[in-house]
C-alpha cells in the first residue's frame, strides 16, 4: 500500500494496486464537528473528476466528498454508514469512506504539502 496522499479538499487517498481508499482528514473532521450522517455512493457508480460522490453531515454543517479524479466506486464503508462517529474517532483509519478505481491519475499532495495548506 502506498503512503497516504492528500487532496486540497481535505481528503486522504491510499492506493493499493489499482484500488484507492478515500476518507476525510483529521483536519476536516475537526472542522466539521460531530458527524451524524454519512451519505455514500452506490458500488459501481462511475464519477467524473471533481464530482461530489458523498456527503458528510455534522450537527453544524455539511461536507461533500469530492472525487479527486474520474473513476468508479468499488466498495463503500458500511460500518461508517451505520456509525458515522467513526469519521471523528478514526478519520484516517477505520473511518474511511469509499474505495475506488481511478480511470485517470489524480493530482495528489504529499503529507508535507498538505500540512502547509492546513497550518
Amino acid at each position, binding site marked *: 500500500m502506498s503512503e497516504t496522499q492528500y487532496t486540497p*479538499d*481535505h*481528503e486522504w487517498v491510499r492506493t493499493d494496486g489499482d484500488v484507492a481508499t478515500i476518507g*476525510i*482528514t483529521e*483536519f*476536516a473532521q*475537526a*472542522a*466539521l*464537528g*460531530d458527524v*451524524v*450522517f454519512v*451519505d455514500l455512493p452506490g458500488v459501481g457508480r462511475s464519477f467524473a473528476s471533481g464530482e461530489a460522490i458523498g*456527503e*458528510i*453531515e*455534522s*450537527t*453544524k*454543517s*455539511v*461536507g*461533500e*466528498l*469530492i472525487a479527486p479524479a474520474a473513476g468508479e466506486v468499488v466498495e463503500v464503508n458500511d460500518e461508517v454508514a451505520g456509525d458515522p462517529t467513526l469519521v*471523528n474517532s478514526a478519520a484516517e483509519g477505520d473511518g474511511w469512506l469509499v474505495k475506488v478505481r481511478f480511470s485517470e491519475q489524480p493530482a495528489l499532495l504529499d503529507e508535507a504539502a498538505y500540512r502547509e495548506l492546513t497550518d
Partner: protein
Amino acid sequence: MTATGTPPSEAAGRTPLLAVHEAAGAQLIDFAGWAMPVRYGSDLAEHQAVRERAGLFDLSHMAEIRVRGAESAAFLDHALAGRLSAIELWQAKYSLLLAEQGGIVDDVIVYRTAGTGTGASEFLVVANASNRTAVLDALAARVAGFDATIDDETDDTALVAVQGPAAAAIVGAIGLESEPIEQLRYYRSLPAVFEGEDVLLARTGYTGEDGFELYIAAHAAEDLWRALVLAGEAHGLALCGLAARDTLRLEAGMPLYGHELSLDTLPAQVGLGRVVALKTKGDFVGRSAVEAGPAADAPVLVGLTAEGRRAPRAGYPVLDGDRVVGTVTSGALSPTLGHPIAMALVEPGSATSDALSVDVRGTRLPAAATDLPFYTREARA
C-alpha cells in the same frame, strides 16, 4: 470534502476568557467579529451535558448597554416594544427593538438593576453581538428628549452561563454572597458578590433548561470561570461552545437573530406578538407598523419535524406539494430527539399543510408542521 467554519481573524474581538478557552483546547471560530469557542471537544456531548447535567458557556461577546437617568424607564418604553417601566427591581424581560417599519432590529433582555447614589433604578439592556452597533445607534437616536444616558459596557463586562439541571447546585457552591439562589425565579435576578466583585446573577438562559447567567467585571471573569469549573466537577459540568448553544436553543424553539428574526419580519410573523405592548402603553417606535400588521401573505414561522438523519438547514427551500412556499431559517438533527427539526418561514396558507417537504440539496425530505418548542424539560421529566 469542503472545509467549513471561518477561523477568527487577528482583528477579532477577544473575550476576557479567550486564553482560558485556548488552554482548554477550544476550537475557535469567528462569530459576529469575535473569536468564540464553537466546541471544546464533541458538540453532541456538550449538548447532552446541558440536558442531563450542566454546561458552562462564555457569552461575553453579547452587548451590555446600561441605561441610567430619571426617565430611563419612559425612554425604554419608547425605544423598545415591551413595557419596561412595569418590571420590578431585579426582574428581567425579553423584548424587541423595532424599526419604524415594524421590522426587528434586535431581540434583547432587559434587567432592572439598582442605581447608584440617588436610589433611582437603572436598566441593563443585553443585545446580540452582531447587532451591538445597530442597537446602540437606535438607542442613541431615540433617547433625544429623555433624561437618560446610554453606556456601552460590553468590553468591561464578562457574561457566563451555567445551564442544566445541576446549574443551581453548581452556582450555589462557588461562595457567592447573595440571597439564597434557590428562591430566585425564572427571569429574575439578584445582586451578588464573588470574591469582592459585583455579580448580576440572573435565572435566564437560551437552552430550554434551568440555568443562570452571571455578569461580572471582565477582569474577574477568569476567577469566576475557574470557580464554576471546580464546583462543576462533582456534577459533570461540560464546557460548551456555540455549536451546542445553537442546537439547544433550536430544540427549545427559541429564535435567533439573523435566522428567524430580521428587519424584514414583524413580531407577529414569528410568534412574538405577545412581546409587543400595544394595549398597555402609548406610542413607541414601530407601533403604527405593528398595528397595521404584516401583509396578509407575509410568511409565518413554523416548526418542522422530519424522519431520518438528514437535517434541513438554514436557506433550504420549503415546498408545499411541488410549490416553493418558504425557507428554512434554522435546522439540525436534534441531538435530544434523534430526528431532524427545523424552523422555517412559510406562506401563511401552508403553515398547517400536510404536504410540506424540504429540498435537502436536491432530495425531497417530507416534513410535518408542528408547534414550537420541539423540546421542553417538563415533557421529559
